[in-house]
């Protein structure tokens, strides 16, 4: 019997990259085992599980540059534990950093570049058959006389791929079964910071490829029927092409197909660029059940729009969010207020924009330098890269902005970047409410909705006000005075933390009230159908219990009366 193929990666939600691979190789007679790897603390357990499987191939998906060292270190640990498997790494990071990986991680036998379905099938087949693996298109393979580059592999039409593996129960949001899905790969745009663009552009094929509406609808139908999925979270990096007419035609067809299947009680989540937000198109999507759009605002500063190659205007940004307001569609956005060419005026423009749309949950950060991106090439040419191939950094050209970034990243680190930081809680409760509004309409009303919008607005205003203080500080003070900068930063960080304490408490009260509304106001059908016989908070409790990030674990302690202190 052929040994199985172990596919390792994060599975916080169904990991479509692993699950497309699993489906592809299982269609060719292999047994795929998906091995979740969420946290460095799990490395020992992952190694033990793989050892027990004794797989023919271990595939390690390295999609996040932030965790690349951790994932590649796992390959070393597997080999040290005696694994005889062929270890292959893939994903965006491995696609670009293959030479460094092969040099510094000798446990890695090969790299699969770009999309991996067909390449992995051929790799596994050759290993099963005992034939040489060097030279397979789409791979770099370690051989006795060096690394063999198999060249690129032509990208396959997406409709030809098997649907992703859907083993296990779907995760639930407020008791509603949900499923991640992609209708396309790549993006038509070419933003300088974007690893998706870099990944697609570097491959042998079109930069943006779409599945047919028929192919997408059929996968949705299966999920609807077989697993009871009602919430479809489209992870397409961009849901659209730059033509409202073509987009309307595509999604009208999808709606027609879904209507034909009787799927008129579903909800959709999508991502888009601001220039694609068209009232007619989004009115259609609203009718199809779209409850949330992530809008890639990214920057509203003049220099950022140019240096990040956004190919849009500040008017596009404002118009997009205004259309969402007018259509009463929930959205969220992120702003890269720091980029290599950021100026204090540009930061102000971004803060002004965020203030104008602070009823919409947002977050802010720096444009990071990902492998293979134009931004990396530009900074490399300018001699501005710092760090190493795992984590390139840079300094902004304007030292005042650089210090503002350093202050911000210290003071807002917990709020903006922790899994359960206020920024994510703000986004999370608004999304959960949209699920409630759609699936338990009796549990929501305009006044309640207004309270949640007010919460988001106050979180946004707090961040903006504190950032304006930091902006004023670097504008007026000696930024080279380390003691003063540190003292200001610590004071700011403490004020952010104190505000967060209040926001978390309020968010938690809102969350419990929302659960209570579902319990007491949703009709029987909603409770019975959507929560599948379990109280709606059960799914949330499960999520809490399973969210075992370092700062996410839920700890239960005995009641005070029974304490033995």
């Amino acid at each position, binding site marked *: 019997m052929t040994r199985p193929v172990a596919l390792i990666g994060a599975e*916080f*939600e169904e990991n479509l990259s692993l699950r497309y691979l699993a489906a592809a190789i299982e269609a060719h007679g292999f047994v795929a085992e998906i091995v979740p790897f969420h946290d460095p603390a799990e490395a020992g357990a992952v190694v033990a599980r793989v050892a027990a499987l004794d797989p023919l191939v271990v595939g390690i998906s390295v999609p996040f540059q932030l965790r690349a060292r951790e994932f590649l270190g796992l390959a070393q640990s597997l080999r040290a534990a005696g694994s005889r498997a062929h270890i292959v790494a893939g994903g965006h990071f491995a696609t670009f950093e293959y030479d460094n990986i092969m040099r510094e991680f000798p446990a890695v036998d090969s790299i699969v570049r770009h999309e991996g379905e067909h390449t992995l099938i051929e790799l596994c087949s050759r290993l099963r058959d005992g034939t040489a693996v060097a030279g397979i298109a789409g791979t770099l393979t370690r051989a006795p006389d060096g690394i063999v580059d198999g060249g690129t592999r032509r990208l396959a039409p997406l409709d030809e791929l098997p649907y992703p593996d859907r083993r296990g129960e779907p995760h639930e*949001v407020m008791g509603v079964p949900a499923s991640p899905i992609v209708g396309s790969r790549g993006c038509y745009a070419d933003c300088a910071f974007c690893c998706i663009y870099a990944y697609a552009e570097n491959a042998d094929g079109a930069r943006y490829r779409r599945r047919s509406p028929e192919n997408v609808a059929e996968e949705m139908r299966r999920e609807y029927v077989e697993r009871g999925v009602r*919430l479809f979270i489209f992870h397409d990096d961009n849901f659209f092409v730059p033509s409202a007419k073509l987009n309307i035609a595509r999604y009208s067809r999808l709606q027609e197909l879904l209507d034909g299947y009787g799927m008129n009680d579903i909800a959709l*989540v999508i*991502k888009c660029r601001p220039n694609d937000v068209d009232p007619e198109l989004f009115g259609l999507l609203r009718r199809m059940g779209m409850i949330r759009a992530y809008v890639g605002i990214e920057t509203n500063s003049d220099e950022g729009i140019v240096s990040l190659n956004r190919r849009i205007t500040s008017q596009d940004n404002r118009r997009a969010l205004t259309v969402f307001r007018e259509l009463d569609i929930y959205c*969220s956005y992120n702003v890269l207020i720091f980029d290599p060419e950021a100026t204090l005026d540009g930061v102000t423009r971004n803060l002004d924009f965020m203030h104008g749309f602070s009823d919409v949950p947002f977050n802010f*950060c*720096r444009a*990071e330098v990902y492998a293979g991106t134009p931004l990396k090439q530009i900074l490399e040419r300018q001699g501005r890269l710092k*760090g*190493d191939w*795992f984590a390139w*950094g840079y*300094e902004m050209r304007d*030292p005042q902005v650089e*210090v503002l970034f*350093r*202050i911000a*990243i*210290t003071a807002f*680190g*917990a709020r*903006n*970047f922790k*899994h*359960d930081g206020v920024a*994510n809680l703000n986004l*999370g409760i*608004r*999304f959960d409410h949209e699920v409630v509004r759609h699936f338990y309409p009796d549990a929501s009303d305009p006044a309640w909705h207004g309270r949640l919008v007010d919460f988001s607005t106050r979180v946004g205003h707090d961040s903006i006000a504190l950032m304006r203080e930091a902006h004023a500080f670097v504008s007026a003070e000696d930024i*080279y*005075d380390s003691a003063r900068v*540190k003292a200001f*930063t*610590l004071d700011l960080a403490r004020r952010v*933390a*104190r505000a*967060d*304490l209040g926001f*978390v408490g309020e*968010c*938690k009260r809102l*969350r419990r009230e929302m659960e209570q509304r579902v319990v007491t106001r949703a009709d029987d059908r909603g409770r019975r159908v959507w929560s599948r016989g*379990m109280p709606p*908070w059960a799914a949330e*409790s*499960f999520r*809490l*219990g399973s*969210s075992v990030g*370092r*700062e996410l674990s*839920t*700890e*239960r*302690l005995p*009641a*005070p009366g029974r304490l033995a*202190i």
Partner: protein
Amino acid sequence: MGIKDQARRIAAGASVAVATSGLSSCNDNGAVDPPPPPLQCNTVNMGQTLSASATRDADLVDVTVRNTLGYAGWRVDRVTALTGATLVSTRLPAGSSNDSLGVRLRLESETTTQATFTVEATMIGPSNEMCAVQRTFVVTISPTGVQVSLADVDRLPLAARQRAEIRMGNRAGRVVELRAATPWLGERVVSWAVTGGDLDAKTGPAVRWTLPVTPGIYQAELVIDFGDEGLALDTLLLEVREA
């Protein structure tokens, strides 16, 4: 405990929970598209701990470059980009943190007053994590002697983006052990504060926090001051619930 059992306990209020503050997780329901935290190579250092001294004998200058970070090693990949001098020889460190790099330069002429060279190195941390760095040293010749300084030094404050993390340790009832975690093992001062309850210490790598009996959400604050290497703060929220 199954999902339903867990839910029942919550619904019935059968247990008082001291829970971290997480509600929705960003990574499991499509609710959020989290922004990327800054990529950083500061688990080791960015080469800011390299320092140099020099001696001169006629037109020969011997420069010694040391890694002053005691716990980490370094590997010199090459010495390049010389101006004002030619490279006579190098003595590379063996990989131990205490090893130094020796660079012997021959000045271009008797009137040369400045020479530069660049060290391309890899800093290596205690867990074998690495960070590639480039440092340019400036050798200044004066009648009174020879001095070496770092060029292009980041003189802005908070140069290293440091990390601090509160980790929960042992628990006994309302008493929770908190530990300060950071990948930076150099000089640092750790301090703690809480918004309710009592700490058994205000400084040190680990403290015991006795939470109040009164229900509510309480916050622990960890500040790690790394001196010239920056500052980091982390908070942990715990909720004490009614029985």
